[in-house]
């Protein structure tokens, strides 16, 4: 034993070890720094809203608000009298969204039913990652697919369809949102308790009857919420429509010809050479703000549905 080492009492040791001042200081400082970091997400939202509002107001000093909201002609590039009526862009967006919804909702919900009610564990473990891959494909790749594969096929069947049209990108946007509807709806269906299924089976129901009459109604809020979220994604989808839908805003319900959506207009202006400070430059903010309000409303609706109508078991 080393007897000549200086003896230190435990108390002294604690006193020596505890640079409590510094430690207490960091302990107080860290949460404040983290709070600061957490506010970045709030600042981002504020940044988005203020940018859009601020530049939109500048736009409205040059273009009448009323004619913007109710105008049915969108010719910003006309040399003599440019007109800024947003309705054709809104209609273009709605065409794409409607076609995408028609494609994605039946297929998405059918996929969800199959995965949650019929598929074995092995099949589910095989299919779910593939659907995730489908969800992870970049939208520019989908745009390429729409223009170079889906459009030529459609045109060989229906020759009256133009090279740029609403159907092809609409279908492809639908394909893009299938995984979203399928996976969120499947989550909702899987969380329906098995006791309810067993009750129906005990009464002699088939799998189909259990799926349609028991599981679907019980999971309905989740399914609708997923659909609304997916529609919001379709409204905001940019690259597929920018590549394959054309750039001809029209106030009609024709889907075989070239159209333009709100997102595609923003792309058209920013890839062109409209100078900073021109009316056209500010118009992308007015269009972006309209787009933002549309998607925000859909997202809030989805949150409201899943909160308000959730069935608790």
């Amino acid at each position, binding site marked *: 034993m080393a007897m000549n080492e200086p003896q230190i009492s435990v108390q002294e040791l604690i006193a020596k070890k505890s640079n409590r001042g510094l430690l207490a200081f960091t302990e107080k400082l860290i949460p404040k720094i983290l709070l600061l970091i957490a506010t970045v*997400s709030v600042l*981002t939202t504020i940044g988005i809203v203020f*940018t859009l509002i601020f530049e939109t107001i500048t736009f409205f000093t040059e273009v009448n608000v009323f004619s913007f909201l109710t105008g049915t002609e969108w010719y910003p590039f006309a040399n003599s009298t440019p007109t800024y009526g947003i309705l054709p862009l809104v209609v273009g967006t709605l065409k794409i969204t409607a076609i995408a919804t028609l494609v994605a909702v039946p297929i998405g919900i059918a996929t969800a039913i199959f995965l949650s009610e019929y598929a074995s564990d092995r099949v589910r473990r095989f299919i779910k990652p593939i659907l995730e891959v*489908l969800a992870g494909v970049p939208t520019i790749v989908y745009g390429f697919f729409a223009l*170079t594969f889906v459009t030529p096929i459609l045109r060989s069947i229906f020759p009256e369809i133009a090279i740029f049209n609403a159907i092809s990108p609409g279908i492809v946007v639908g394909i893009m949102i299938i995984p979203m509807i399928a996976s969120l709806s499947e989550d909702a269906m899987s969380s329906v308790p098995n006791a309810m299924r067993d009750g129906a089976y005990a009464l*002699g129901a088939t799998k189909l009857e259990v799926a349609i009459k028991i599981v679907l109604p019980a999971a309905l809020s989740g399914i609708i919420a997923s659909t609304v979220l997916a529609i919001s994604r379709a409204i905001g*989808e940019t690259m597929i429509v920018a590549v394959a839908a054309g750039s001809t805003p029209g106030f009609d319900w024709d889907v075989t010809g070239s159209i333009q959506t709100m997102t595609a207009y923003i792309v058209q202006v*920013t890839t062109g050479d409209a100078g900073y400070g021109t009316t056209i430059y500010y118009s992308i903010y007015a269009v*972006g703000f309209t787009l933002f309000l549309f998607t925000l409303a859909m997202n809030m609706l989805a949150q409201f549905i899943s909160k308000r109508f959730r069935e608790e078991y």
Partner: protein
Amino acid sequence: MKYVNHEEVAAKTKTRLTKNTILKGVFAAATSFGLIVLAILLYRIVTQGSEYLSFDFFTSFASRIPENSGIKAAIQGSIYLMLVVAPVSMFLGVGTAIYLEEYAKKNKFTNFIKVNISNLAGVPSVVFGLLGLTIFVRFFDLGISILAAGLTMSLLILPIIIVASQEAIRAVPNELREASFAMGATRWQTILRVVLPASIPGILTGSILALSRAIGETAPLVVIGIPTILMFTPDSIMSTFTALPMQIFDWTKRPQVTFHDVAAAGIIVLMGLLIIMNSIAVFIRNKYQKRY
């Protein structure tokens, strides 16, 4: 004596069972639709693009002639972009997640931050482009630079990283924290030495998946206005650049069909990058993620 009339039961259940079988087939067909589309998409792109995919494709710049076109500037730009996006978005995302899971009290402000994050996740990427154009490119005067685009992309994927990190941190059982506290550790020491090491695989997996979203994202880059034909590679984060999805967009838009094949070759490279990143994420998840 028969209590059950089997014939009557069979007659009554037959149509219901046939319906079940038919609909099962329909549901299975709907499920395979997604798989078939993915298979066609991949097959098309590989057959279209493989002709242009050569060593020269990686080492030459974009060109007016399809045969001479390459992705040298684009792929380096994308890598530089990720070098900005990865640290910025992870620092902000993990920091926010730690605050929300470990420090935040249950009050209105915390709730506001949470609602805000889920709404931010639903904002279209093109709107983030407008934010980047106004705030980073013009207001902070960063120009059309890697930094400006990287910051925009970081904000775009921030919600994904926050949510993934929150889940990873939440999965760390409270017993571990309590044991650490019982040993005399402070809250921050516990987070730094117990909670974060336990949750880092989950955080990394989520972050890599978010980054793979950023590397394929085109719309914000278009809106910011980054060029497509660039004859030099970036040398600092303040230099202008082009990125892989941007280059693909440019080739896809061209009327000459041969450029579509070049675009397909670019897509093969982009999808290859995504597959590598996803595999790394899955690998980390399977190898390091503990279940408590």
